[in-house]
């Protein structure tokens, strides 16, 4: 798994690539936590290059969403593959995450 973060004026964009499983999800969660701790609570998580997402990755995302919502921020998702989107749907998360077809649209939604 690789993570690249870009900081825009109002939004931080974190692009994740590779496999998010229980071996790698703790790193994703801590990188997201760093953003939140730095006061960056409007976050776009770009999932375009995520090949695999297990429940450990979902856990990192839900935990971050809870943290940013408490301070009126949001964690919005961009570009999930059909497979990742299906996993989100099966896990009942499409109703609590705002999901966008591109990074640009996710950024513009803030």
């Amino acid at each position, binding site marked *: 798994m690789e993570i690249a973060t870009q900081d825009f004026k109002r939004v931080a964009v974190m692009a994740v690539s590779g*496999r998010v*499983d229980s071996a790698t999800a703790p790193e994703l969660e801590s990188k997201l936590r760093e953003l939140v701790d730095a006061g960056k609570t409007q976050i776009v998580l770009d999932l375009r290059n995520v090949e695999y997402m297990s429940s450990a990755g979902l856990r990192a995302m839900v935990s971050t969403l809870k943290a940013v919502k408490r301070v009126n921020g949001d964690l919005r998702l961009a570009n999930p593959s059909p*497979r990742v989107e299906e996993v989100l749907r099966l*896990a009942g998360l499409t109703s609590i995450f705002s999901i966008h077809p591109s990074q640009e649209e996710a950024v513009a939604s803030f």
Partner: protein
Amino acid sequence: MDQVTSAPGTGDFAQAELTVPADVRYLVIIRRFIHEAAQVLGAATKSIDDLVQAADELATNAILHGYRGQLGWIEVAVRPAGGDLLVILRDQAPPFDPRLVPEPDLSLPLERRPVGGLGVYLSRILTDEIRYHALPAGGNEVILVKRGVRAAK
């Protein structure tokens, strides 16, 4: 317990097996192994993805909540049964029957959702059946079944 090993041309009696340390860093190897073995056995791609994820979720559970950092092994086998495909997971961790885990309430608002608890649920909905046996010598055997996913011989 039947210990049928691979032999070319033996159809339903062929079984591919893998043993890895109970360490989350080996999950990627478990996933690749199941993926490759299921492909050899002619399973459809969507079914392979489902079985791979279901097995990853349950192996993760065994490693993190069963062994809890203690040394141990996860055994994985991929076995055809007619048109069905079975993934068998064995461990020597304390007894844990994934069928008994209550379903999460997916209608709860965010504030009341637990952050975790989705792994076992996903493994159940991604498969057609989960069988469980507490092994006589200790440990668990979980069999994940995906039906009608191969062109049966």
